[in-house]
């Protein structure tokens, strides 16, 4: 089947990009000022100790050697060893993956229906009061810094009203009831801008689609307006929407750094941030690589989703 081969090919095409990302992040992380050992040991290093640690982690070797080693290990699925935790980076990533994925997934789950509903509503009420309100709300959603929103939610819902716990994470797979209140604010924080963006997107592509000729055709043939919107236009409007949904993986992963930092969620975003602060090279590179891979997979999935929506697209 063409789709399978196509998918396979798309994934193979990711390899050079991933290679580039590895190279870039590797160079960048090693360009960080100071060295991790000194940072780790602090202000008063015993030189012997520092030398030993540096040697143990290979930091004293030429960068290209370290880089080649890294690549060789990477091919074997080994992202290296965390300097700070003294554990394999892959273990750390697996360990921290769940919260990030859960929050991201939930924020999609919330954002999508809300955004699509509101977007279609706005398009249907194009240039009328309802549309203006939802459009301004959308703009406001995009214009609110997410860390600010997070803090405001905490002050309002946790501090003043005391209806939700301020921070922490429980796996919803282990304890769904206990997890729910903890997830509300982080998911809300992530989902707000996302919803706003998707809503804007839905609205404008719906408006655009509603101006297409086939809409007029449908109208001319007595198809009810509702059906035109929800069946004909929406199906077409989905195309740009799907692209955004795929691309938002990137925004959400970036947002996870902030959300996890504020809500004390033990996810990848925090792992990344801490690793940058600690100059834990391999962790920072590993998480960046992981993020990028997730994003690229998102893009490929988007491409595949197109196939289901747009029959004009063919694979060889």
């Amino acid at each position, binding site marked *: 089947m063409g789709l399978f081969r196509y998918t396979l090919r798309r994934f193979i095409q990711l390899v050079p990009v991933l290679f580039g990302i590895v190279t870039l992040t590797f160079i960048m992380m090693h360009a960080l000022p*100071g060295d991790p050992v000194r*940072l780790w040991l602090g202000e008063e290093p015993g030189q012997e100790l520092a030398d030993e640690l540096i040697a143990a982690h290979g930091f004293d070797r030429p960068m290209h050697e370290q880089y080649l080693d890294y690549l060789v290990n990477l091919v074997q699925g080994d992202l290296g060893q965390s300097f700070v935790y003294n554990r394999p980076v892959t273990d750390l990533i697996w360990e921290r993956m769940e919260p990030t994925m859960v929050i991201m997934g939930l924020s999609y789950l919330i954002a999508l229906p809300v955004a699509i509903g509101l977007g279609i509503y706005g398009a249907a009420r194009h240039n009328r009061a309802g549309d203006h309100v939802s459009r301004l709300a959308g703009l406001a959603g995009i214009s609110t810094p997410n860390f600010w929103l997070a803090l405001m939610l905490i002050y309002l819902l946790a501090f003043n009203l005391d209806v939700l716990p301020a*921070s922490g*994470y429980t796996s919803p797979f282990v304890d769904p009831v206990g997890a729910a209140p903890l997830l509300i604010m982080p998911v809300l924080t992530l989902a707000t801008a996302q919803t706003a963006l998707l809503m804007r997107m839905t609205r404008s592509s719906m408006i655009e689609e509603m101006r297409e000729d086939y809409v007029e055709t449908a109208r001319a043939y007595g198809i009810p307006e509702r059906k035109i919107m929800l069946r004909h236009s929406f199906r077409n409007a989905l195309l740009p929407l799907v692209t955004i949904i795929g691309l938002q993986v990137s925004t959400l992963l970036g947002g996870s750094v902030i959300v996890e930092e504020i809500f*004390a*969620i033990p996810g990848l975003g925090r792992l990344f941030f801490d690793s940058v602060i600690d100059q834990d090279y391999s962790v920072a590179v590993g998480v960046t690589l992981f993020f990028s891979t997730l994003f690229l997979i998102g893009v490929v999935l988007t491409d595949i989703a197109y196939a289901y929506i747009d029959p004009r697209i063919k694979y060889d």
Partner: protein
Amino acid sequence: MQDNHNGSDLNRRRFVKSAAVVGGAGLFAGCIGADPDDEEATDDSDDGTDDTTGGGGVFTIATSDEVETFDPRQNQLAWYSSAAHYMFDSLLLQSPDGSEFEPHLAADHPEEIDETTYVVDIRDDVYFHDDWGQLTAEDVAYSINWVLDPDNDSPNQSNVAFIDEAEASDDFEVTLHLDFPSGLMERALSHMNAAPVVCKEAAEEMGDQEFGENPVGSGPFKLENHDPSASVEMVANEDYFLGAPALDGMEYRIIPETEVGYVELVQGSLHQSGVTEELLEDAEGNDDISTYQLSNLDFQGFILNCLEGPFTDVRAREAVHYLVDYDEVLDAAAGQLGGRNWGHMPQETVDAWDFPQEEWEDQYYPEQDHDRAIELFEEAGVGTDFEVDLIMTAGEANEGRSLVLQNEFEEIGVECAISEVSTGDWLEALNNADYDITTYGWGGNDDPDGYYYHMFRDLRNDDGGMSDDVVGHSSIGYLYEGTRDRGEEDILEDLERLDELVRQGQATVAQEDRREYYIEAADIVLGLYPLLGIYSAESVTGVHSSVNDYEPSEFGEQETFNYWQEASIDD
């Protein structure tokens, strides 16, 4: 329980972790700054000692850093130095007010055989967690020797460096052979950063890595669960040799943002959390929260670069001391959470050792006088036509004090640019002497040694020494190097004496002698003005009213369950 060791500013930064490795320890009485505004919280049930086991709830505390290893011999984290006391025991235990070292695993205080030999009897009723067997002299000797072994790279090594070897001279008797007598011995034996006792069998069987994840100690709690970056849970050790604690367990929640932790404290989902200065007022107004203002036992100020730049001349450095109003700097940096200090050590230490604070103040901490400052700059030959490169790491305290200094410089017509740099950059800049002035703090001890030895010794004279290209950045702004470079013989003589004094101070037991050394050292250092020392920081911790019989202290050692108090929690 200084979860926020140096205020909220530096809590993530590694260098503070190492700065704090000596933890808190004290020789003086009095729980400084403890300020329970809610008396009821403490006088409820005095009789609830060891018979009230279980049902005491789980005591939950906010902390900001992920723990990297549970092996106390390898730990560099400030908060875990306190928390490790719950899972491990030490030979001695420091009292909450810091006044005394109680025998703990030791049956009694170490017995002096001769100047460099001490014998410690070990209790014979202590068992490790989870059937790892009885704690014996073997375990104690193993633990101390492990830290001493340079191959193990323990960050605690320097804290027990005075010990040559620990020997299990009997089943329950350890003999300590010292390299030199030290006034810091009992302190070291009471500390997680020096001589925590781990289960030898478990440590050897598991190896460092696994032991770091599954620690085996003998403390009142044992590790139950660790969710990385989220929480550390401990459950009560029912078989603890002092009886089972009233609490069911302890939980440390890792919450990076202090204010978020505070919100949870207000909500009651945490029992203890740091309180930022801004939140202090709110906390004090909250009936559910008792606040305790605790000294950080540190020294905060600026370092002036003595190697190059405008401050190579001692008069230029003195001029900077005329530039500022110290109280204003303190205010801007720490607000209510800090106090002035004199002599480059915490005021608590100055008081406890009865140092000549007033003389120092009169002589080395002048009143603000811009004219005099300008005069001194002129004398030093730099005039006021120079630019100052002030670097700082992030944080309100650093920013506040930098801003004041910048304003003062600008008032006398000197350009002063502040650069906020990352910790990596900062260490790099320190290493390369690439700054004129930088914010500086050093903390975690109440003994003058913690400051004078660490900040003022000449690193070139260290055992093993520093390699030539590493000058060492924690010394006093390259004062040694600069003086040598410029061949200022008279100052160099003073400096050599200074190095000698701080080293002697460490290797001397008698406090009167040590006091003399430090006074002389202080006179040398203060007179050369390499540091603009301003204040000691304090931090506030809030405790929820549902907690009974608990009062945090600077010397957080098994605070919820020790000889002095036993906390429990209302449902």
